[in-house]
């Protein structure tokens, strides 16, 4: 029997970055907010302590902090003509769970999209002609311009204490920063992290080629920092246990460190952990989500929580699942191109890499932070001329280890066996003398890449799994081939003792090797309800009291790690709710 609870002003589904930000902004505006988190109440001072926080096997290999795929996963098919099979063990991407979500175990790369990324379809059409974009490439503009979002990017960077150096300060181009970025009103809150040997080699090589290297914008605080919520981050220890781990130094920005202590101290907020949301109660006629049904996983008891405002802040897949199972909006149909829920699922074109070996240089890869590389953006987005190239988009290219944890990080020169005497000799010889140059590429929407409900496989609550119909397509392979050429040039300019052959992306998308937890789309934002799920304020076109957060609103994926835009859009949406919606509840955009 479902227990119906007293109505609250707002309910937040998922207490990660977006749930924490929205709950904080709404409680500040005087609302009572309930936060529903499917996982445990995780706080760093208990959960992330030395020595156990340095357990490579437990965290990096056995995946202690991630969504439990025994209970919830997704399925994949490479094309709509195939039968999808469940992803039985996480590999390619690693969604989080527990308080703070994946924000507790990310690496900390904190980007802004390029101004041209914000208006991608318009930009490409203007520069390359109205027939330049192939029919199957269903890219759209993000309906919020860079200039409109700039203060919100700035706010999220200040929440996280991002370390970096501006490359474009109020229009002034600054050497040593990312000269391709949009103009920023303020310098980064913290100076860049200490340089690594690998980053220094990268910097020199890129300058010799005429490129524009800069240090990664990093939510690993280079100095002790207190944010506007009164929360203090420690200084990064360069421990080499960042991604997949919690931070014992409290130097990695996370909801748990940056915002939750303030939120949990506020009597207007009530956190309910172990509360797994099962479904949204949708009143189609009233165009409202009336309530949220959830299960207390400690008792099996089912509750219905009515609320005036519902914030959907789960990961991409659960955002789409809850919309589809509630029947909110029209599901996407790849055959007709009609419907919006599930449309434009995108990922990241990664896997381009080259490893360089230096007999005479000590790299010390274990002294590293999560976002610690030196990068170039010269071949990213539309920062270079795509005329005649046959593809759009590009990649950031980075060198600099994130770790030297030897279960996974022990590069050996090409041709070395994977085991035996020769493997041992090579591993011992090169462990401290090598690093990898990698790339993260844009992934532009394709008509046949989308999300819907799997007809066969179910999760532990009995709901269908989200089914990914997804593969790389022509644009992705061409992009990766081009970027592979750049990687080879950069590697050669380093003059290494030995280098691997830059890997070239071929074959189908694989769920096995880790690529990135940058899944996007499915509830995309746009200006037309026919081709988008939420308006520019992330408000559902079909339920005006439902706001959808996170990378599921990205119309396609730029090359950048998504958290910067996710955080900025969360503040942008929160501002619209507080300054507009509360005064006059109803649609904020009339289509």
């Amino acid at each position: 029997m479902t227990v119906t609870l007293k109505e609250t002003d707002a309910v937040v589904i998922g207490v990660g970055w977006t749930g924490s930000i929205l709950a904080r902004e709404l409680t500040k505006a005087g609302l009572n907010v309930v936060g529903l988190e499917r996982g445990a109440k995780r706080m760093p001072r208990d959960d992330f302590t030395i020595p156990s926080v340095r357990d490579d096997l437990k965290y990096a290999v056995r995946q202690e902090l991630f969504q439990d795929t025994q209970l919830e996963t997704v399925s994949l098919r490479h094309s709509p003509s195939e039968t999808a099979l469940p992803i039985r063990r996480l590999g390619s991407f690693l969604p989080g769970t527990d308080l703070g979500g994946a924000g507790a175990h990310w690496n900390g790369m904190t980007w802004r999209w390029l101004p041209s990324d914000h208006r991608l379809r318009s930009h490409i059409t203007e520069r390359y002609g109205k027939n330049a974009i192939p029919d199957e490439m269903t890219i759209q503009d993000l309906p919020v311009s860079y200039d409109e979002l700039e203060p919100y990017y700035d706010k999220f960077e200040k929440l996280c204490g991002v370390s970096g150096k501006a490359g474009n300060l109020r229009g002034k181009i600054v050497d040593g920063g990312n000269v391709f970025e949009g103009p920023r009103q303020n310098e980064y809150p913290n100076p860049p992290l200490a340089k690594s040997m690998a980053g220094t080699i990268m910097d020199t090589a890129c300058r010799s080629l005429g490129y524009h290297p800069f240090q990664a914008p990093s939510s690993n605080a280079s100095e002790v920092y207190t944010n506007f919520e009164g929360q203090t981050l420690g200084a990064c220890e360069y421990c080499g246990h960042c991604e997949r781990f919690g931070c014992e130094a409290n130097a990695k920005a996370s909801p748990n460190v940056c915002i939750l202590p303030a939120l949990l101290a506020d009597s207007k907020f009530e956190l309910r952990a172990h509360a797994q949301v099962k479904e949204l109660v949708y009143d189609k006629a009233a165009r409202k989500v009336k309530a949220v049904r959830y299960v207390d996983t400690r008792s099996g008891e089912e509750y219905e929580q009515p609320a005036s405002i519902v914030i959907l802040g789960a990961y991409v897949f659960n955002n789409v699942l809850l919309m589809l199972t509630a029947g909110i909006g029209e599901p996407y149909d790849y055959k007709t191109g009609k419907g919006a829920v599930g449309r434009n699922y995108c990922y990241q074109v990664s896997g381009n890499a080259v490893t360089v070996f230096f007999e005479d240089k000590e790299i010390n890869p274990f002294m590293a932070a999560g976002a610690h590389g030196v990068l170039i953006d010269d071949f990213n987005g539309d920062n270079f001329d795509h005329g005649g190239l046959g593809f759009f988009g590009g990649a950031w290219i980075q060198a600099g280890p994130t770790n030297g944890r030897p279960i996974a990080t022990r590069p050996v020169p090409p041709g070395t066996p994977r085991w035996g005497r020769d493997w041992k000799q090579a591993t011992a010889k090169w462990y401290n003398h090598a690093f990898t140059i990698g790339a993260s590429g844009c992934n532009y929407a394709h008509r046949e890449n989308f999300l819907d409900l799997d007809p066969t496989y179910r999760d532990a609550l009995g709901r269908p799994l989200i089914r990914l119909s997804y593969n790389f397509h022509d644009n992705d392979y061409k992009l990766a081939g081009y970027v592979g050429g750049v990687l080879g040039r950069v590697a050669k300019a380093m003059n290494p003792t030995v280098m691997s052959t830059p890997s070239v992306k071929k074959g189908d998308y694989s769920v096995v090797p880790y690529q990135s937890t940058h899944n996007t789309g499915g509830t995309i934002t746009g200006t037309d309800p026919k081709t988008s799920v939420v308006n520019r304020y992330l408000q559902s076109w079909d339920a005006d009291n439902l706001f959808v957060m996170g990378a599921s609103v990205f119309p396609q994926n730029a090359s950048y790690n998504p958290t910067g835009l996710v955080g900025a859009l969360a503040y942008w949406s929160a501002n619209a709710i507080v300054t507009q919606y509360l005064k006059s509840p109803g649609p904020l955009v009339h289509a």
Partner: protein
Amino acid sequence: MADDNIPIRRRNFLLGAGTAVAASLTPPAAEAQTAPTAPGDAEPLLTLTPTEHAFFVAAADTLIPADNLSPSGSQCGVAAFIDRQLAGAYGSGARLYRDGPFLKGKPELGYQLPLNPREFFRAGIAAANEWSRKTYGKDFDRLADADREAALQAMESGKAEFSGFSSRMFFNALLDISMEGFFADPIYGGNRDMAAWKMVGYPGLPATYREDIKKYFGKKYDKPPRSIADFS
């Protein structure tokens, strides 16, 4: 020296077989490091059968042979590590989605068998030994060094035709769990005396390098490694 190879002796005892073959399995004393701590005559097994344990010992010592860089895989505790892993949550399928139907899929769709890791290795070792007997006349752990290497190469390339089992998939899982045991923190039973960390120069804990990243820029880090147990 043959007596140092405890698992072989256990199997020989169980099978009532001779010990001649064991002598060839031991690396030459002059160049091999000795075991950092005694492997333990009565290393207790949580889940592996003696036959399975002997297989993992022989595999670990072929994948990670003793030399001037480190003792052998089993001397570093790799087989003990595997026994503990397969006896615990991982072995019984933690974080593995196990709802059917179980259909054969492309390799890009990842692992699709109903077997948990414990069951996978049980079936895989049975298939590997069956193939080894057919090919070489004896179980894998009874083979001489050169034959073990050839056998593992045949599995790695997928040329070894196991009955009802992919030898390549088995080999990759075997290599993964052996390397995990060799390189993981010693609290899990492998990487004894941090032999693997010493081999590569990985310092382990506490990993607080705020000052050292500047001090050791471009220089070899010369501090001995420490493990989780050293801070517990």
